[in-house]
């Protein structure tokens, strides 16, 4: 399964794609984190127990300022519990959690001022217009009345709902409600956005819109901490990733470092029409080769997997070694060490 193009994967019919030319566009550039040590979210040995169930155990979360941090794990791994603790909705059973330097237990008000939170499931009020909804939450965040109309217009502009300003909230589509809720989390200009499964239940177009919005927000300097069980989302927009399983952090860090750390070898798949032994012999003379494994043949063609370390030059040398001997190579491609592989390697499949 490829995860490079998740939208096509989840599109039930071709029509959605035809309506959404946006799907084919190049992924935008991600923001860069200036200082890996400047943590805006930090937990130390965070634990949460529900009766006899240990939901989170000794979780050490480290989210640097300015990061887009993907918090990944199977359902039931403890993502929502962690987020509810970070958003002051729940007390931890043990350990500490800090946002922007404030403890979620002893300084909940300062924490709330620093965060914008979007839960995985949320409702909207009936009997309310879109602008009234934002006005209400802006008032709850103590934004002075005189500033609110301008702020509401800006927020609606940002999430592309300006044309629905006077519509009733419950008449909006799911994707629009999600965007409205995102606008709501931004009312008090928080430094951190904590988003629980922001893309779940959305159609492909809405998902991409949310994704682009998140990147835009990150560029505005906001730290984004979001959970997901869809690896593709994380792969495309995250600068950092944390993988949680059964309440424990199994791996975390900058996404590039994670890929290298967990998948230090590069893997090449070569398809041949014949002369397998000669090919293996030729390849063994190239430097950096760690091993050659036979893969099951496909359509009668021989396939081998070559593990190696080093630069792209090695690949070029390998191809040269094969073609110089006239070995019939029909496909020669590196298997990208994608996030799925990283994830499978990191997790043990305890919860799924």
């Amino acid at each position, binding site marked *: 399964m490829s995860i490079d193009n998740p939208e096509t994967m989840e599109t039930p019919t071709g029509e959605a794609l035809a309506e959404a030319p946006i799907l084919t566009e190049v992924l935008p550039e991600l923001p860069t984190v200036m200082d890996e040590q400047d943590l805006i979210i930090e937990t130390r040995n965070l634990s949460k127990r529900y009766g006899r169930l240990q939901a989170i155990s000794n979780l050490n979360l480290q989210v640097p300022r300015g990061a887009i941090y993907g918090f990944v794990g199977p359902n039931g791994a403890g993502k929502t519990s962690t987020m509810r603790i970070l958003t002051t*909705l729940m007390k931890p059973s043990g350990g500490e959690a800090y946002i922007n330097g404030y403890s979620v237990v002893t300084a909940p008000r300062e924490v709330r001022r620093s965060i914008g939170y979007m839960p995985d499931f*949320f*409702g909207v*009020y009936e009997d*309310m217009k879109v602008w009234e909804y934002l006005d209400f939450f802006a008032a709850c*965040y103590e934004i002075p*009345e*005189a500033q609110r*109309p301008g702020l509401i217009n800006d927020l609606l502009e940002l999430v592309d709902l300006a044309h629905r300003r006077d519509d009733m909230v419950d008449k909006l589509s799911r994707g629009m409600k999600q965007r409205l*809720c995102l606008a709501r989390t931004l009312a008090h200009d928080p430094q951190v956005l904590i988003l629980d499964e922001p893309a779940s239940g959305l159609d492909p177009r809405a998902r991409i819109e949310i994704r682009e919005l998140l990147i835009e927000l990150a560029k505005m300097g906001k730290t984004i901490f979001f959970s997901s069980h869809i690896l593709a989302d994380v792969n495309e927009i995250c600068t950092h990733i944390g993988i949680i399983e059964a309440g424990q952090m199994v791996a975390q860090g900058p996404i590039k470092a994670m890929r290298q750390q967990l998948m230090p070898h590069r893997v090449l798949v070569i398809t041949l029409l014949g002369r397998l032994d000669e090919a293996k012999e030729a390849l063994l003379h190239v430097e950096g080769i760690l091993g050659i494994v036979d893969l099951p043949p496909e359509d009668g063609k021989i396939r081998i997997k070559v593990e190696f370390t080093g630069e792209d030059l090695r690949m070029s040398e390998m191809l040269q070694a094969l073609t110089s001997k006239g070995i019939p190579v029909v496909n020669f491609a590196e298997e990208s060490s994608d996030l799925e592989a990283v994830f499978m390697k990191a997790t043990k499949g305890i919860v799924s």
Partner: protein
Amino acid sequence: METPATRTRISLNPLRPLLRNPVALKELRGRMRGPRAFVVLTCYLIVVGGFTTLLYIAGTAATYNTTGEVDGGTLGRVLFGSVVAIELFLVTFITPAFTAGSISGEHESQTYDLLRTTLLPERQLVFGKLFSALAYVFLLLLAAIPLQSIAFLFGGVDVEEIVISLLVLLATAIFLGNIGVYYSAMTHRTLRANIMTYVTILAVILVTTAGAVIALAIVEGLDPSTSSSGSEWVLLVARGIFVCLNPLTTLLSTQQYLVNQQTLFTFKYTFTDGTTTTLPSPWIAFTIFYLLLSVVVFFATTRHLKRIEG
């Protein structure tokens, strides 16, 4: 285009400071939007008005005096008392219905977490919910004042009585509203909050009525030759407590003292041994007690909401 801000700047609305509470503003907007608020008010007035008409017809037939004329004073008091009783009944039913879903409804519609992560103080949430519900109940009470005032046409009722009845009704509504919001905050389920609120109200009504009746029966049955004034004091206070805990008995006995003793704030009690004492009128005790209790319940609700889920 006119923005909401420009509208507020020129507003002369005296309720403006109260509407700075975002919850109150949102709730009032939602409550008054659409036909529901109008329909409830209309039905309420039809019920109260219908009963008043029936009572008028029945009353004119029943209060002919010996000269063959209608006794205006008696008819006026009967009409007034009946309208207040109906209002009391409706307030007792309507107020919990408006408040028991206030906090639990936020849980049920999955909006509570969104609210809790804002900077909105818990007391503002509780106050906003309470204020918007009570504002509507007050509207119902005010709308029925013309019906209460029909009694003026017949005499026998003073303005003070209307004011007192309104005070007792308001204190009742405020207390019931607080009870409704309290259970709503405690249970997370509107249905359960409704049941608990109505059970509490029913218990208060039954216990106070039974207590007042029993205490009265004992007092009536006292033998002046054997009873001490000490034991009579205990009984008097006990009966007073029961009477003053129930809005209906409070109103009835206040009316009784007003008619018999022509006093509004105090009444004289004559012991079986002939000595007398002056006590405050029941409506004062009722209003003060329930307003104080409302404050206590309000803070209990706020305290509960402040607790972070363990």
